[in-house]
C-alpha cells in the first residue's frame, strides 16, 4: 500500500510541477510588464517537445541516449525520498527516506548531468557542466552544515523520523541552532532550484542548462520534467525538515495535497527573489551570496557545538 501512495505522490508531483512553473512564468511576466504566456504554457511546451523529431551531435555516445532517463530516475527517486505519504512507521520506506540518500541521489543527478554535457562535445554544454559541478561544490557544504545541526540534534539521519520529531514538537524552533539553520538551508535550496542570481532556469543556453543545448524532442521533454521534479524536491526537502506541517494530517492524500500546495507556494515565491536580484558571474555570485549562507550555517553549527 505504501508503494501505491508513493507512486501517487510521484505522479501527482509530475502532473502539477509544470503548473507551478507556468504560474511563476506568468507572474514574472507580470512583474516585467508583459502579458506573458498562459499558466499552462509549460504543459504545451512539453507536449510540443514530445512530438518533435530529434537530432543529435555526431560525438555523442550511449550516455546521451540514457541520460534523460537516468536524470528522471534520480529526480523521481529523490522526490520519493520525501516522507509525505508515508511516515516513520512505514518500515520499508523509512529505510529509504534518509538525508544522505537524498543528498547523494542529488549528487547522482549532478554527475549524470555533467557527463551528459561533456558527451555532447558542445562548448556551451561543457562550460555549463563545469558550472554545475562548481555550484555543487558551493552549495553542498552549506546544506550539510545545516543538516548536521538537525541530524545531530535529533540523533538520526532518517527524514521520516526527523519530520515526525519536528511535528511532535519534541525538537524544533525552540532550539536556536535549528531555527538559524533553517534560514541558511532555505537559501541553499533556493540556489539548488537554479535561479538568479545563480542561474536562470528557463533560459536555455544559459549557465547550468547549457548542458541541454544538444537535447531535443522527447529526450528534452523528459529532462525538463526531471528538472522540474528536482526543483520541487529540493524545496520539499526544506519543507520536510523545517516545516513538516503537511504530515500532521493523518490522511496521506490530504497531506500530499497540502504539501504540494506548500511547494507551489515556495516555488512561486522564488520568483520574487529571482526577479529583483541582479545577476553575477558565477564565481562572484557565489562568493558574494554564499558567504552569507555559509556564515549563517556556521553560526548555527557553532551554537549546536556549544550545546545551546
Amino acid at each position, binding site marked *: 500500500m505504501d508503494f501505491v501512495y508513493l507512486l501517487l505522490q510521484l505522479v501527482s508531483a509530475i502532473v502539477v510541477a509544470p503548473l507551478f512553473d507556468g504560474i511563476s512564468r506568468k507572474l514574472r511576466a507580470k512583474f516585467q510588464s508583459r502579458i506573458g504566456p498562459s499558466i499552462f504554457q509549460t504543459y504545451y511546451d512539453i507536449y510540443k517537445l514530445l512530438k518533435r523529431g530529434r537530432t543529435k551531435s555526431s560525438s555523442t555516445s550511449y550516455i546521451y541516449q540514457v541520460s534523460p532517463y537516468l536524470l528522471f530516475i534520480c529526480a*523521481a527517486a529523490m522526490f520519493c525520498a520525501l516522507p509525505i505519504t508515508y511516515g516513520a512507521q512505514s518500515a520499508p520506506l523509512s529505510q*529509504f527516506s534518509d538525508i544522505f540518500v537524498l543528498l*547523494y541521489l542529488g549528487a547522482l543527478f549532478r554527475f549524470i548531468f555533467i557527463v551528459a554535457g*561533456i558527451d555532447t562535445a558542445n562548448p556551451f554544454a561543457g562550460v555549463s557542466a563545469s558550472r554545475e559541478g562548481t555550484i555543487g561544490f558551493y552549495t553542498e557544504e552549506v546544506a550539510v552544515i545545516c543538516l548536521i545541526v538537525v541530524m545531530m540534534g535529533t540523533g538520526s*539521519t532518517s527524514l521520516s523520523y526527523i519530520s515526525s520529531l519536528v511535528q511532535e514538537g519534541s525538537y524544533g524552533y525552540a532550539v536556536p541552532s535549528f531555527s538559524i539553520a533553517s534560514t541558511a538551508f532555505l537559501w541553499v535550496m533556493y540556489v539548488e532550484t537554479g535561479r538568479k542570481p545563480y542561474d536562470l532556469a528557463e533560459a536555455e543556453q544559459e549557465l547550468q542548462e547549457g548542458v541541454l543545448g544538444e537535447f531535443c524532442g522527447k529526450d528534452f*521533454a523528459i529532462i525538463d520534467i526531471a528538472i522540474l521534479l528536482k526543483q520541487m524536491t529540493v524545496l520539499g526537502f526544506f519543507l520536510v525538515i523545517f516545516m513538516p506541517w503537511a504530515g500532521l494530517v493523518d490522511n496521506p492524500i490530504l497531506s500530499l495535497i497540502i504539501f504540494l500546495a506548500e511547494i507551489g507556494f515556495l516555488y512561486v515565491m522564488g520568483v520574487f527573489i529571482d526577479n529583483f536580484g541582479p545577476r553575477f558571474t558565477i564565481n562572484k555570485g557565489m562568493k558574494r551570496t554564499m558567504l552569507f549562507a555559509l556564515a549563517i550555517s556556521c553560526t548555527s553549527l557553532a551554537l549546536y557545538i556549544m550545546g545551546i
Partner: protein
Amino acid sequence: MQTIYTLFLLASLLSLALYKKPLLAQKVGFGLASVISLYAAVFFFSNFDETLIWKLPGNFISLPQFRLDSVGMFFSFLVSFIAFAVSLFSFDYAKFYEKKANLAVFASLFNAFILSMLLVIASDNVFSFMLLWEIMTLISALLILINDGEGASKNVMIYLGIAQIGASCLMVALIIMASIAGTFEFSKFDHLEMGMGMSITLFSLLLIGLGSKAGMFPFHVWLPIAYCQCPSNASALMSGVMIKVALFAFIKFSLLLPQFAYFGYILLTMGALSCIFGIIYALVSNDYKASIAYSSCENVGIIFLGLGGAFYGLGTNSPIIALIGFIAAFFHILNHAVFKSLLFMLSGNVFTATNTRDMDALGGLHKKMPITSIIFFVTALSICALPPLNGFASEWIVYKTMVIGGIEEGASSRFFFSLAIIALSITGAMAIMAFSKVYGAIFLGVARDTKCVEEAKEVSFSRLLPLGLLASLCVGFGLFMNDVVSILSKIVLTIIPQTSVSTYGFISMPIIVMVMVLCSILPFIFLYLLKANNKEVRVTDPWACGFIYNKNMQIGSNSFTGDIRKALSFLLKHEQEIKLDGYFSKVVYTKKTHDLFWEKLYAPVIDMVMLIADKIGIFQNGRTNLYAGYILIYLCLVLIFGYYYL
C-alpha cells in the same frame, strides 16, 4: 595457510627461473599468481572465524611466528582476492612492458609482492614485521621501476624516501611498545602500561609510520608520482591493497595501546584533511592516473574518518560507536580495494590503447573501447559514492558514525565530528566533479588529439574479465550491503569489547534500487501514453553558435576546473603560461598545478639538506695540514667536553 605462502614463493622463483624466456615466464608467473590467489581467497574467506598460527621452522632470528585472527583473515582475503583479479588482468597486460623490462622479473616481483603483503599481515613479531614491511616497500619500488624511463629513479626515490621516514617512525614506535611489553610478539602485547602522553606519542608515530604508506595527508605527495610511474597492474595492487595492509597494521597496533578519545580526534582531523586535499588535487590534475592516485588519499581519509569514530568510541567506552566506526572503515577498505584497483586497471587499458596520460589529449574513447568505458562509468559512480553502489553504502555508514559520535555531550567531540561530516560532504561534491571530468574527458566527446585515439581498440577478453568481475562486485556490495555489514560486524566484534546492541537503523539498499526501478518505468509509460515522436534521429555536428564546429571548442579537463581553481586559488599554486606569437597564430595555453605541500613542506627541507651537503665539502678540501689540525682541535674539544661536562 603455509601452503599458500609456499606456493607464492615457488611461483615467484619459478618465474625468475624462466629468466631466459620472458614471454613464457609472463604466462606462467601471472597464471600461477591468479590460480594461487584464487585458492588463497577462498581459503581465507572460509576461515574467517578461526585463528591460525604457524611457526617458521629453523633457527631464524627472533623465531618468527605467523598468526592470523579474524581481522587478519579479512585483510588476507582482501589481498588475495584483489591479487586474483589483478593477476588475471596482468596475464595479458604485462606484455605491454616487454621492451622495458624482463617479464620474468616482472612476474616474479609480482608474486613476491603478493606474498610479502600476505606475510606482513600474518607476522606476529616486531622483527619479522619490520623485515617484511620493508621488503614489501622495496618490491613495490622495484615494480615501479619496471616502467623504467625518464625521471623514474627520482620518482621512486620520493616514494622510498617517504616510506623510509615512515618506516623509521614505525620501527621506533614498535620497539618502544615492545620494550614496554617486554616481549617482541604482538600477540603477547596486551595491557601496555603507559601514560597518556606516551600513548599519544606512540599513536602519532604509528600514524606517521603507517599513514605515510597509506597515503595520508601530508605524506600523499608520493601517491601521484609513484602510481603514475608504475605499470597499472602494480599500481592497482599498491593502491588497492598495499595501502590496506598499512591500514591493517595501523588498526592492529593502535588497538594495543591504551585508548583515549584524543586518538579519535587526531584521526578525524587527519582524515578530514586527507579527504579534502586529496580530492582537490584529484580534481585539478590533468593526468588521469594522477587523479586516480590522489583520490586514494581522499579515500584513505574517509577510512580514517571511520576509524576516528571507532577509536573515539573505544576511548570513551561507547562500544556502539566503535562498532559502527570499524564497520564503516572496514567496509570502505573493502570497497576502496575493489574500485581503486579497478580504476587503475582501467587506466592501464586506456594507456595501452592511447599511450598518453594527458586528459587534454584524449576524448571520445567510448566509441573505440565501449566495454572499458562502461566499466569505467560504473566504477566512477562507485568511487563518487553514488547510490546504489558500494561506495555509497560504506560512505553512508561513515556518515552514520559521525552523526552518532556527534550526538555525544561535550563540545570537542561535536566539533570534530561536525568537521568530519563537512569535510566528507565537500569531498563528495568535489569527487563528483573530479570523476565526471575524468570519465568525460577520456571517453566522451570528440578526441582532442586525434593521433592518440585513432589507433585505440578494445582490449582482449582476458583483460576485461577481471574488470567485469570487480565491477559487478561494486554493484553487488552496494546491493547486498546489509549482508556485507553483518559479516563485517562479526569480524569487528572480535577486536572490540563485546556489545549486545545490534539495532542500528541502516538504510536498505534494495529498496532504493526498487524505487529507482519503479521510477524508471514512469517515463516510458508517459512517452507511450502521449505518443511521443520516435522517428530516426538525425546526426549533425554539435551546435557551435553558428560557427563551424571544431574539436578544440569542447571543454578540456583544464578548463573544466577553471572556476573551482579560481575559487581555491589560495590553496592551489599554479603556473600559467600563455604563448602568443602574432595575431593569427595559434595561442598555446598551458597551466600546471603544483602540489602545494610538496613546495611548502618537502622542497624547503630537501633544499636545506642539499645546501648543507653542498657546503660541507669545504670540510674535506684535501689539505693534509688542515686534517692534522682537526685531530688536534677535536682532541681539545673532547677533553673539554669530557672534563667539564661529565
